[in-house]
């Protein structure tokens, strides 16, 4: 049987990566200027289905506590903040994103990547996750920011279409958000400006969808989990801006070239898998290496659709900007869809992206993602016959990552896939 290659260290280092560093660096500098020099007003928002276009239309600065929390984890400085929050009364069992953010908020809002400004508006764009509501409720209590709970009805029905009442409710609320933004920013709402921003978002989304379709190629030009996260930050923080657009033009071009050249992120692509669940940010590299050494590449991931499902046909519409922002929030993002709709999404990935297996990364911090993933595994292995592995850790809290245990489970899984592959190949050989 083929052996796993030893210690393959993979990391994506292309033009896209450098550009991402540059433009995200500028974004974080802007946060620091807002925090330290009062340059601009900050709006706190959440990633899932975020309506960043509205905020940009008032020249306000989108700030994402989730992105800050994950940056703290990636930079391995989250734990003291988590512990600070626990001293304040937060439980071991509460989402560690929230705890890291709250701990940081109460520590002068200084991080290794930026100083985080206080919010002028706390725009809780409730899309699926109930913890969002609590998180922003708490931030509102700790700051003087105004809270607006932008309530997005959960897409729970048999059909994946929101009702007319759902759409009206969201559009009316967006209009109320506009009123709040006018008051807070002191600027008059400029419809034409919003249309322009939405039109850039439409172009950005289209390129992102094209990029994601490229992983249907063999080999896949990039890893749709570990490399997709590089593209996600510009997609949320800079969507609707010129530089955001430029980033996606660069990324698309680079990935198309890789497809032409038959290049992938690994020397050899031996397995293609779909992965469900958010990444373990504190140990992202270690986690990636556990797959790379088996020649395993993620060809699709559900996590990369938390901000939007452009790849399944969504496009912002500058002729109906508010309605299209509402549609994005209601229908076209992973977290506002039901668990069963997520099963369908994964199944589609397995079929259309030609994957060999499903890997479920279950994280304690995010019950929206995780609660019930055992049922998901049951469905994929028993009903659909797709090899499925479930591993557990966390998105933020380094105390829940056990590398040795994770390695054992992943090795055993791919060993078995390797064995099955070998049997298949030898059966084909015999037949010939």
């Amino acid at each position, binding site marked *: 049987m083929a052996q796993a290659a030893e210690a393959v260290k993979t990391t994506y280092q292309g033009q896209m990566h450098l550009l991402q560093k540059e433009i995200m660096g500028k974004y974080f500098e802007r946060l620091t200027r807002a925090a330290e020099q009062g340059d601009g007003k900050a709006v706190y928002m959440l990633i899932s289905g975020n309506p960043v276009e509205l905020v940009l239309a008032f020249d306000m600065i989108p700030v994402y506590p989730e992105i800050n929390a994950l940056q703290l984890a990636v930079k391995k400085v989250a734990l003291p903040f988590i512990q600070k929050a626990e001293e304040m009364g937060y439980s071991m069992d509460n989402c560690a994103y929230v705890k890291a953010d709250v701990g940081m908020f109460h520590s002068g809002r200084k991080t290794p990547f930026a100083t985080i400004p206080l919010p002028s508006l706390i725009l809780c764009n409730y899309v699926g996750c109930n913890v969002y509501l*609590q998180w922003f409720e708490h931030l509102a209590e700790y700051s003087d920011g105004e809270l607006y709970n932008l309530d997005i009805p959960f897409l729970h029905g048999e059909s994946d279409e929101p009702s007319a009442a759902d759409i009206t409710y969201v559009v009316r609320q967006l209009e109320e958000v506009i009123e709040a933004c006018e008051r807070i920013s002191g600027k008059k709402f400029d419809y034409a400006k919003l249309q322009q921003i939405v039109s850039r978002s439409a172009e950005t989304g289209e390129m992102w969808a094209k990029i994601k379709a490229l992983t249907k190629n063999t080999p896949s030009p990039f890893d749709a989990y570990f490399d997709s996260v590089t593209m996600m930050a510009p997609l949320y923080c800079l969507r609707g801006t010129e530089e955001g657009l430029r980033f996606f033009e660069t990324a698309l071009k680079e990935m198309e070239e890789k497809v032409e050249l038959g290049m992938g992120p690994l020397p050899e692509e031996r397995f293609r898998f779909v992965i469900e669940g958010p990444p373990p940010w504190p140990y992202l590299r270690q986690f990636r290496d556990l797959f790379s050494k088996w020649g395993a590449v993620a060809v699709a991931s559900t996590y990369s659709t938390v901000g939007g499902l452009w790849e399944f046909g969504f496009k912002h519409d500058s002729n109906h900007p508010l309605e299209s922002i509402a549609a994005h929030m209601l229908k076209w993002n992973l977290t506002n869809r039901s668990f069963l709709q997520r099963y369908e999404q994964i199944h589609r990935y397995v079929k259309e992206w030609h994957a060999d297996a499903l890997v479920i990364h279950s994280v304690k911090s995010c019950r929206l993602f995780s609660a019930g993933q055992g049922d998901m595994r049951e469905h994929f292995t028993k009903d659909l016959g797709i090899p499925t592995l479930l591993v557990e850790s966390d998105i933020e809290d380094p105390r829940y990552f056990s590398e040795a245990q994770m390695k054992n489970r992943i090795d055993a899984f791919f060993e078995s896939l390797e064995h099955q592959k070998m049997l298949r190949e030898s059966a084909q050989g015999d037949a010939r």
Partner: protein
Amino acid sequence: MGIENLIAGYREILEESPLEPAAKWKTTHPGSKVVGCYPVYTPVELIHAAGMLPIGIVGGGNRIEIAHADSRFQSFVCSIVKSTLELGLTDKLNFVDGMVFHSICDPARNLGSVFKRNFPQMMVEYIHFPQNMKSRSTADYLAAEYNRLKKSYETLGGKTVTDEDLGRSILLYNEQRKLLRELYRIRKETPQNLSTAESYVLMRIGTLIPAEEHIAILKEALVELRQRDERPKDRIKVVLEGSFCEQPPLELIEGLEAAGCYILDDDFLIGWRWLVEDIPTEGDPVRNLARAYIDQSVYSGVKHDSRQSKSKHLIDRVRETGASAVIFLAAKFCEPALFDYALYRRTLEKEAIPHLALEFEEKMWIFDKSRSEVETFVESMLFD
């Protein structure tokens, strides 16, 4: 029958076979339907008006062994999610024709989907309760959501619901809630005359039988309770907060009382008494139901109303009942309750109101630790 016997009888049902009354009702009413309501809130009137019996499916208690549901929901998911699924996987919900889940928390929402996949014969509904109480459009939205639900129940019940039907159901449940408020008033004013465990049994049985029968039971019980005249014991008066969804075992509630507390108010089974005033019977009944959620429902860990902070509600409740302390009793892994605690603690400390935080699981069997923690807390207050 004396009230002690009455309560003991219902307690036995609740501990041994809580779903039996509803299953029995169904066999004695051929062709009828039963709809299970997962905590916290349900507009039961919509189910009742469609000629069906709404019952509370509030987990499996501590007499159920989780053998199957553990493989579906992870170790960090609360007990009620698993025990409710276990009831289904072990055929104990076969008599239930529909279930309704809500937007109260992330695991509850996913549980709705897992139910749908595992029990295709069941009609699984989901209500998205609005989280924005300030919008000018909230009432329109919730009325539309309730109308959608009404249609769904009409299909399941095989009956068109008229405004008159719904009006009658609203009146009926108004009466049930009024009697439950009376029960809580007695506890608040004369806790020596009604223990929390007793009132819990009287309330919980009502989630498993038709409201008409429950109203009769409550009336009978209230007559006897008003005649009780016990001498107050040397106990501290507390408000209990945090058990709005998963329910603590009765033995634990009794343990808290025996350790030296009068629990003047709590948030047990809050979904069956979530409206603090009667729902108006004039005008569009669906709209009235919707407005009631927005303007007349109790605050809770899973209702997000930025018009007023939850901490303020809690402090007001302590002041209004005359309690001197708060016991925060949260289900293990209950994220909403555990988040609330961080804010409550901050405010309680600011207001210098003593409090004790405890965690429980519905499947708990051993209560010594909680009891001794409460005893220590009570002593620290009594001899301060």
